[in-house]
């Protein structure tokens, strides 16, 4: 268990290095000189631009800058915003809780809606419930999230007037409901689909026949034997979905004016504030990697069998 976790943590390092390299290359190389384009847009004086260049080490070769960037990142230094000169780490950390709250609530909604739906659909294959679940699953992955959000807004804020249109509301629960639903429903659909497939697979396993031959009731078989084993299969997908969900927070945060990292990322992209964008991207990816690490460890804990690989 411990060894496994350590080993997974070590595998983490090259991935992080690769990702930071890609992001660094993307944001620092391709547009030639992001800082200067910022400076150009803001019509800064040449002296300020020179100072900016020095600050940003633009006079040094790329690999030196990457090396410095990574070593600073390792010490938790994410640099300084081009525009407002504030510390990137600080601003990212103040925005982080809102994003985590939104993402975790949405994931919870996805699990609570998707897993039972897929589970019962699989048990009653071909029934109206199964057809309903299949329709929901395909519809849910096809509907544009922000459009769904707009429709929810229309229903709950405009027609029924029971939920606030947008905003964080100082963390009030009522403000969380719509963004979390908007983000969660699509993933509930995907999870329903995965769960259905997993349960169907487990249902045909030999040990389910054994359980039946033991005279257990179907409820008992379905919960203790089928669902438990299916959850192991679902768990991995949940980890991957969470990564995609973290990415989608960007759009939902923007729609609901939710003050998370996603909004910050979009703002910084518009302002071409590269250090901030870089910081947001790194944090989002790290969250994703950490979640997948946790899922792996949890998977290993539930199913120690995969130890040998």
């Amino acid at each position, binding site marked *: 268990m411990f060894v496994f976790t350590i080993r997974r943590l070590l595998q983490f390092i090259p991935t992080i290095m690769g990702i930071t390299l890609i992001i660094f290359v993307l944001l620092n190389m391709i547009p030639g000189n992001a800082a200067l384009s910022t400076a150009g847009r803001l019509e800064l004086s040449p002296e300020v631009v020179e100072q900016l260049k020095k600050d940003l080490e633009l006079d040094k070769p790329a690999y030196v800058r990457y090396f410095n960037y990574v070593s600073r990142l390792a010490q938790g230094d994410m640099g300084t915003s081009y525009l407002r000169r504030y510390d990137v780490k600080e601003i990212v950390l103040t925005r982080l809780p809102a994003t985590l709250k939104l993402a975790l609530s949405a994931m919870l909604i996805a699990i609570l809606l998707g897993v039972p739906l897929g589970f019962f659909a699989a048990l009653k294959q071909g029934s109206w419930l199964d057809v309903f679940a299949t329709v929901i699953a395909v519809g849910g992955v096809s509907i544009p999230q922000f459009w769904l959000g707009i429709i929810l807004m229309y229903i709950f804020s405009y027609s029924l007037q029971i939920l606030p249109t947008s905003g964080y509301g100082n963390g009030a629960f009522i403000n969380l409901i719509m963004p979390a639903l908007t983000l969660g429903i699509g993933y509930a659909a995907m999870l329903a689909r995965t769960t259905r497939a997993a349960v169907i697979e487990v249902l045909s396993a030999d040990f389910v026949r054994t359980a039946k031959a033991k*005279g257990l009731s179907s409820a008992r078989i379905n919960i203790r034997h089928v669902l*438990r084993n299916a959850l192991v299969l679902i768990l991995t997908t949940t980890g991957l979905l969470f990564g995609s969900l973290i990415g989608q927070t960007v759009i939902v945060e923007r729609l609901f004016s939710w003050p998370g990292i996603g909004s910050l990322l979009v703002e910084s992209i518009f302002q071409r504030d590269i250090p901030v964008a870089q910081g947001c991207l790194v944090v989002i990816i790290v969250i994703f990697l950490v979640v997948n690490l946790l899922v792996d460890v949890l998977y290993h804990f539930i199913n*120690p069998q995969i130890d040998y690989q």
Partner: protein
Amino acid sequence: MSKNKPLLSVRQLTTQFNTPAGVVPAVREVSFDLQDGETLGVVGESGSGKSVTALSILRLIHSPPGRIVKGSIEFNGVDLLQRDESYLQKIRGNSISMIFQEPMSSLNPLMKVGEQIAEVIRQHRQVSHAESINQALEMLKKVQIPAPEKRLKDYPYQMSGGMRQRVMIAMALACQPRILIADEPTTALDVTIQCQIMELIQGLKEETGSAVLMITHDLGVIAEMAQKVIVMYAGQVVESGDVYSIFDNPLHPYTQLLLRSIPVLGRRTRNRREKLQEIEGMVPNLLNLPRGCSFFNRCPQAQDQCRRQAVELREISPNRQVRCVIATA
């Protein structure tokens, strides 16, 4: 042999599978009796319908696509095919238990083996959790698993195939069933382990007095354990009788070929099993069965009449049946 009313009486059992390619008649009008305490051997190649017969008795056929379309299965005078699921749940694992062919996949990979045994005890007996674990431990001792206290907490992946099959046997016998159905319990195991498992089943059977339905393609096992034998081919019973008359005087050409392929009776060599598969020709496609005798295409003694019409199972002497037109007592 016995004049008593049989413990289990299967009549005209017919099980089909609906596949996209058509209806597969896996079991066709199979009938047999099993007396209390007796061992009945069911022999046949893979695809002969012997496993489906076993699964049909406890109604464990996946449905759909499987369906029992005809027949009766009387246990203690009650037709199991006429009863609802909750009645069967009381029978399964309690009065009639089953061991399967695949010990590697027949145990729940996420549950401790002790719990898997205890679960069946709690299902059928009013006992506390602690007591059920205690009884599970006793069962592990009975099936001769070393260090049973420790093994109780093992997960299946920590055990070898032979050990897992012992756990399956412990699970099946935990509630002292009247009938144990063993569906090729040793096929997936090493030859040396096969012997141990068979001896274990035989020993426990003698200890508990359960009747055993032993399904196998291994004639050596039949010779050692069974009192009566039915031979199956392409979903039908082709011959039945007591073990001595079947081995001494096989009547059906298929049985004769099966027996001829054993070099030395009862000696367990790899060779024998390979030879068993050496009967020339192929099992007929169940989707497209010949009109006449199903064994026609492989039968060395086939005659023209065998092709033209279906062959009935006929009683050739008391307790001796054969499905062949040329067979004589």
